[in-house]
C-alpha cells in the first residue's frame, strides 16, 4: 500500500500518525509547499507577540517524519491530481503514484480588493513566512490598522498590542467577533481591548490604502484618514480548491467528504480546512476550519485509509480566545436563527454565559470570563442530548459533569466509549 498525503499541517500530520498506528510498514509520502514542517498555524500570533520562538511553534518533534517513517517532500507544491491514473504531479513535473490519497491542502486568506493593497506594509497572516515578514517589518514601533474584526484580526491585533504597538481595529459590522459572539459578549471583549489601548472602530470599511512604496495611511468609507505604517488584512479564509478544479471531485464551499472522510472518487479522501463535512449543530454540511476539527478529521481519514473503518460524527464551530486575561469560548450556533430556537443567558461581573437550544438540544454556547467546564457543554452538543430539563444548571457556576450522570445513564446508547461506561458501572472490588 502506498499512501500519499497532500498537506503538512494538522490534518496531514494527524492522518500520517493514524495510518502508522494501523499500518507499520507501508510507504507514506507527504507533500507540502511549505518549507518548515510541523509548526502550528494557530500559534502564529504568539510568535508575532514574541511569546513563542519559531522553535516553540512545533506541535510534534522535528524528527516526526523520521520517527514515523514518512517520506516528506517539503517545499513541493502539488500541481495536479490524476484520479484515472491514481497519481499526483508535483511542480517539478514528476509523477507520484498513490493507492490512497488524502487532500489536506488547507485554506488561504481572503484578500481584500482595495486600492493600494500592493504597498509594502500590507500583510495577511496565514503561514510562518507571512508572520516572519511581518515581524521583519516591525523594526520600529509603528501604528497598525487591522482590517477585520474576526478571530484572525483580533488575535493579530492583540499580539501587536502586546509588542507595544498602537493598534486600531477597523470593522465593517457593528461589533467585534460578530460571527462568534452576541452583542453582550462582544462588548465585554471590546471594553477589555479598549481599556488596554486598542482602538476599535465599528461600522466602517477601509476604501483605500495611501502612500508611496510603503503604507502611510488608510481612508475609511466616511472619508476619515488614519495614519499608519502597517495594515493587516484579516478577512477570514477559504478552502484551497484549485488542486481539485480539474478533477470531478465534488465541492461546495469545500471538498465534500462523507462520514469516512471519503470524497466522491475512490481512494481519495479529504480532511482539515479544505473539507466540508457534516455540522452537528446546523445539521447540514459546513466547512469548520479549526485546528481540533482538522486533527480529528485527519485521524478519521487516516484510520479509514489504512483499512480501519471509523465513523466521523461531525463537527461544529468552536473557538477559544484569551484577550488580556479575559477568556472567551464560543461554540456552535450562538444566536436564535429562527423558530424553534431558545436563548438563555446569565451574567455577572466580567462574566457572561449564554446557551442556545433548538428543539431541546444544545446547539450553541458563549462563555466569557469563566470558561471552566466549557467542555461539558461541548460534550452535550456532540451527544445531542435533550437538555431542556437542566438549563439553569448549565448556566450556573455549579455546572459539572458528575451531576449530569443521570442524564448520561438515560442516554446510555450514546455513551458507548469506555470512559463513560466505566462511570456508570460499579467497580469490581466494590462488588465483592
Amino acid at each position, binding site marked *: 500500500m502506498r499512501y500519499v498525503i497532500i498537506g503538512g499541517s494538522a490534518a496531514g500530520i*494527524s492522518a500520517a*500518525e493514524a495510518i502508522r*498506528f494501523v499500518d507499520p510498514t507501508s510507504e507514506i509520502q507527504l507533500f507540502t509547499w511549505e518549507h518548515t514542517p510541523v509548526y*502550528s498555524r*494557530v*500559534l502564529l500570533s*504568539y510568535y508575532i507577540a514574541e*511569546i*513563542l520562538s519559531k522553535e*516553540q*511553534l*512545533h*506541535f*510534534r*518533534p*522535528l524528527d516526526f517524519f523520521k520517527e514515523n517513517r514518512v517520506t516528506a517532500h517539503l517545499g513541493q507544491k502539488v500541481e495536479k491530481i490524476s484520479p484515472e491514473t491514481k497519481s499526483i504531479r508535483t511542480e517539478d513535473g514528476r509523477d507520484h503514484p498513490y493507492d490512497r490519497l488524502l487532500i489536506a491542502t488547507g485554506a488561504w486568506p481572503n484578500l481584500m480588493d482595495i486600492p493600494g493593497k500592493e504597498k509594502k506594509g500590507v500583510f495577511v497572516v496565514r503561514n510562518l513566512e507571512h508572520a516572519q515578514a511581518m515581524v521583519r517589518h516591525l523594526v520600529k514601533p509603528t501604528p497598525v490598522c487591522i482590517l477585520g474584526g474576526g478571530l484572525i484580526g483580533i488575535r493579530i491585533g492583540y499580539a501587536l498590542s502586546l509588542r507595544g504597538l498602537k493598534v486600531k481595529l477597523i470593522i465593517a459590522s457593528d461589533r467585534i467577533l460578530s460571527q462568534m459572539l452576541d452583542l453582550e459578549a462582544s462588548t465585554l471583549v471590546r471594553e477589555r481591548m479598549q481599556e488596554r489601548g486598542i482602538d476599535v472602530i465599528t461600522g466602517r470599511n477601509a476604501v483605500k490604502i495611501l502612500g508611496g512604496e510603503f503604507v502611510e495611511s488608510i481612508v475609511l468609507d466616511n472619508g476619515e484618514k488614519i495614519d499608519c505604517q502597517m495594515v493587516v488584512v484579516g478577512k477570514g479564509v477559504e478552502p484551497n480548491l484549485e488542486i481539485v478544479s480539474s478533477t470531478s471531485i465534488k465541492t461546495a464551499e469545500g471538498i465534500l467528504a462523507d462520514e469516512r472522510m471519503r470524497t466522491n472518487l475512490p481512494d481519495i479522501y479529504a480532511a482539515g480546512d479544505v473539507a466540508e463535512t457534516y455540522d452537528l449543530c446546523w445539521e447540514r454540511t459546513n466547512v469548520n476550519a479549526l*485546528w*481540533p476539527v482538522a*486533527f*480529528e478529521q485527519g*485521524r478519521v481519514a487516516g484510520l479509514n485509509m489504512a483499512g480501519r473503518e471509523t465513523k466521523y460524527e461531525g463537527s461544529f464551530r*468552536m473557538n*477559544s480566545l*484569551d484577550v488580556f*486575561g479575559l*477568556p472567551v*469560548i464560543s*461554540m456552535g450556533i450562538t444566536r436564535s436563527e429562527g423558530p424553534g430556537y431558545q436563548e438563555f443567558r446569565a451574567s455577572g461581573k466580567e462574566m457572561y454565559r449564554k446557551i442556545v437550544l433548538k428543539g431541546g438540544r444544545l446547539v450553541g454556547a458563549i462563555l466569557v470570563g469563566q*470558561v*471552566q*467546564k*466549557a*467542555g*461539558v457543554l*461541548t*460534550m452535550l452538543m*456532540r451527544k445531542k442530548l435533550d437538555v431542556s430539563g437542566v438549563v439553569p444548571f448549565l448556566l450556573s457556576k*455549579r*455546572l*459539572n*459533569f*458528575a*451531576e449530569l*450522570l443521570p442524564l448520561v445513564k438515560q442516554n446510555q446508547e450514546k455513551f458507548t*466509549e*469506555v*470512559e*463513560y*461506561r*466505566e*462511570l456508570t458501572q*460499579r*467497580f*469490581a*472490588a*466494590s462488588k465483592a
Partner: protein
Amino acid sequence: MKVIKVDPEKCTQCHTCDFWCGVEIGSVSKELNSAILETPQPVPRVHVDGNSYPLHCRHCEIAPCVDACPNGSMRRDPQTGLVYVHEPSCIACWMCVMVCPFGVIAPSSEMHVAVKCDRCRHMEYPICVEVCPTRALVVEDREEGSAWYGFAPNRDF
C-alpha cells in the same frame, strides 16, 4: 491501562481526596502548613463538585484534548497511555478546556497552565486513592479490549 474508579455509594463528600491532591500534587511546598498559604492557591486535580462523584481525568481512549492542543503539550505517556500536560510548554490557550467532555481540565490563569489529573503517573499509587477514608476510590485495570490512541512522544521537545 489502570484508571481510577469511583463508587459513589461509598463517597461521603468529605473532600479528603481533593484536599490532599491540592497539597501533595498541586502545591509548590508539598507541605500542608505552607500549601494553604500559597499564592496562587494550589489547584486540586480531582473535582468534588457538591455530589458523591469525585471526578478525575478519565484518560479517554481517543482524547479530544490531545487533538485540540495546538503545540503538543497535551500528550500521552508512551508506557502507560495516561494523558498529561507538559506544563513547561503549555501556553494557556484553553483549547483543551473547551473540548474536555468531563470538564476536568482547570484553566489556571494565575499559573498560566492547564491543570489536570495524570493519575499520579510517577507515583506508586495516586494520592486521592491512598487517602480516601471509605475506599470509594480504587485503581483498577480498564476493561479488557480497550486501547488508547494519540500523541505519545518518548521525550520532551
